[in-house]
């Protein structure tokens, strides 16, 4: 069953005085099945971020629709949208977006507190997640006291604690060194095996090679996609790299 369906998404930005129109997304359609792990790749300016913002309900498309669990999120009222996001989506960002004023634990609790959950409930939910992510010992620390990899794992915990339908990750490895990157990708693989649906935007080939499917976006359109199927990570890596070369040299669309 498709958990996320994107139909003919189009987004046009108009510069302030209405002079230039920039077409960030031309016509994007794809769907994500429950339990999938999808990476979206593309160069800077290809429309990745715009797409993610629309999926996250942070931005509205010019036309087209986004169905999450069959519900059109572009039609949700402004009032309900935050609660909708809290309950259905988990976010992981490149720059972590942890609040300096909270300990890691409180940062992870933030979405639950906003949803009005009791403290006992929060503790109950945190325990297995913290164990899985290996952050149990640093929960009392503040973001400025821990490493980038630890921060990102706390951010993943924050994304998972609401049991979201879909985790959206925006360049999650962008600010991490190679060891921390490897660790985080392993974590993503594990939580995906546990059944979590993940949609990740990246332009790191290494990160994308961990996904089960990779979508390539160029000039605001889905240009190509690769299924991992039975490939090993290294084979997948090679295939992605080749595709990117074709993309960059302006190859024709193929399926």
């Amino acid at each position: 069953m498709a958990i996320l369906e994107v139909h003919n998404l189009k987004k046009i930005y108009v510069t302030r005085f209405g002079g230039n129109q920039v077409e960030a997304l031309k016509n994007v359609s794809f769907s994500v099945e429950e339990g999938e792990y999808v990476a979206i790749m593309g160069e800077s300016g290809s429309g990745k971020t715009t797409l993610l913002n629309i999926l996250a309900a942070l931005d509205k498309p010019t036309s087209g629709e986004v169905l999450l669990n069959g519900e059109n999120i572009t039609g949700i009222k402004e009032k309900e949208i935050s609660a909708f996001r809290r309950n259905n989506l988990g976010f992981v960002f490149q720059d972590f977006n942890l609040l300096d004023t909270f300990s890691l634990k409180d940062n992870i609790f933030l979405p639950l507190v906003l949803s009005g959950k009791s403290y006992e409930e929060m503790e109950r939910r945190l325990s297995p997640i913290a164990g899985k992510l290996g952050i149990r010992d640093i929960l009392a620390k503040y973001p400025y006291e821990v490493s980038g990899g630890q921060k990102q794992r706390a951010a993943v915990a924050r994304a998972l604690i609401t049991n979201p339908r879909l985790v959206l990750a925006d360049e999650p490895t962008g600010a991490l060194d190679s060891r921390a990157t490897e660790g985080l990708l392993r974590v993503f693989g594990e939580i995906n095996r546990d059944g979590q649906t993940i949609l990740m935007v990246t332009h790191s080939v290494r990160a994308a090679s961990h996904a089960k499917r990779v979508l390539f976006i160029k000039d605001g359109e889905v240009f190509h996609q690769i299924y991992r199927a039975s490939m090993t990570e290294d084979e997948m890596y090679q295939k992605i790299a080749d595709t990117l070369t074709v993309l960059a040299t302006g190859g024709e669309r193929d399926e």
Partner: protein
Amino acid sequence: MSRARAGQERRAAGREGRPTKVDTKMFYAKLGFENIKKNSQTYIPYLLTCMGTVMMYYIIQSLAGNESLSAIQGGETIKTMLGLGTWIIGIFAVIFLFYTNSFLIKRRKKEFGLYNILGMEKRHLGMVVLWESLYAYLASMLAGLASGVLFSELVFLLAERVLRLKTHLQFEIIPGAMGKACVLFGVIFLVNLLNTLRQIHLSNPSELLRGGNVGEKEPKTRWLLALLGAATLGAGYYMAAVIEDPVEAMAFFFVAVVLVIIGTYCLFTAGSIVILKLMRRSKRFYYKANHFISVSGMMYRMKQNAAGLASICVLSTGVLIIISTTICMYLGTEASIRVRYPRNIYVEVQDREEGTTEKIKAMVEEVLAPYGAKEVDPLEYRYIYWMGRQKENRFSAFGDGSNGDSCVVQFLTLEDYNRLAGREETLEKDQVLLYTEKGKTEGTTLWLGENSYRIKERLADFPLPEEGLGSMVKSYYLVIPEKDTVKELGAGLGYWSGEEEPTDFWTYWYSFDLELTDEQQIEIWEQLSGKFSASALGEYGSVRGAAEARSSFYALNGGLLFLGIFLGFLFLMGTVLIIYYKQISEGYDDRERYQIMRKVGMSRREVKSSIRSQVLTVFYMPLLAAGCHIVFAFNMIRRILYMMGLFDTGFFALCTAGTLLIFAAFYCLVYGRTAKAYYKIIS
């Protein structure tokens, strides 16, 4: 902002890299100018403050140096006060401008770091900063002095009204005052420049570039400081609330002020954190959507802003106290004159010979006749004023070996009392009537020296006007059966009214109001006084007129009010500036947090309302605390005002409440205005 900075960067890089010899001096001069323009959001308020301070300094200097003021009666008093005012304004100018400048530097550290990385050495940066200071100095001196000259005429007019001057103050431009202003502010700018250079010198470029982005540590809990704050504030409040004696109130006022200031700073910095941490400790309370965000947010804000907020609080309290007190004193001038002069004109003379009364009344008649005026509401009686010691019910002379509190007793005859009070009281030979203005006696017997008297009645009120200083020492009125009773008293009580020789002369008091202008009253007083001095009575008494004293009363109270308004204005300017800068720095800090919260799943409205409530708390806390300080200070200041002859507590309460209301309205206005700058930054 960032685009402007990038442009600046390109420009700076372009110029530095160009091989052709650009006139480097001009380059720094130009860059300095550009910097001021680019940082106008923080620079303009700074320049305005400088300008305003220069203006006020010049005005008060030129007023203090005004020649025509010296010629006026009471002018010297005013000049002394204004001279004091120049010092106070000077000192505050130094503090304010130093504070503001250090804020400017903090905001600009990143920019300095950028220049440094682009290849400007620290001495080049120094040159740029030097030029900036030069521009700022010249601009604020020129604008400040120009507006000073312009507004001094207006202030002179105001001064004439407030001080009730009869002559017109000559408008003049005083070069000396300008010179002093130039020197004072030159020194201030130099100190600020040196401080900036020191900051640039101490830091390394990567640190400069990172600027404020270093992870903010959670504030420590400082129990000791919080307790100290609570203790000092409590002590200050207690002192102010329970004090009764005006002399003590005056003496302890500054002690209380210092205690409250210490308490304010400690509680704002440490106390607030302690309370927030306690809130956080309670899991049930803390993990609620609205508490969660605000408690942690407030902790961070208090760490950043506590000192600034405490300063706003102290300054606001200062403004409120100064203005309410001086306004009360000024508006109450007539009342204090009335206390000192119960009637427009009074004659006070020892009743040494028969016919004193008639002689004086005849003199008054004679002087008043040409004016066709009559004595209005005349008040006449005889009294004896005695100072000595009191211990319980025993009154004894100074220096006879007994101890006890000093006290004042005024004796009146039954005849005078009955006439004044409109009663028909009778007394036996050893009976007296007692009226206690301040003090305490018990039982029914009084010992006056060797003699004892029975108190026939303790009077609830007394038909004489209240005396200003009467409430400062124990003071009693004693009504005795007849004039000669004092003869037997004299021996036991020793010296009458501090005379070398024991005398038992009564003092005759004759006073009356006049329905004439002040000028005519002064003429009458002069004539009467002349006649009186020339007569045989002249040696034993004097004639006093309220009209003659009025101008010196107004010179004093008006001078104080004038100074109060000036200082109040200065403090207000400081308060506004601190609020504005706080809003800006809060805005930059909040912008990032605002965006993160949005991404993590708070709606725009939730974020806005949470931030709004925090910002409101932060900015209204000082006002609330200031209000609280005022409430506690009220009793103390009221007592001090007693010494100035102001007994009308209701009136003082009105002045205080009025000042507080106007100030609060102004504060809200300033908050509203500066909040716009804040919202512009975060959205």
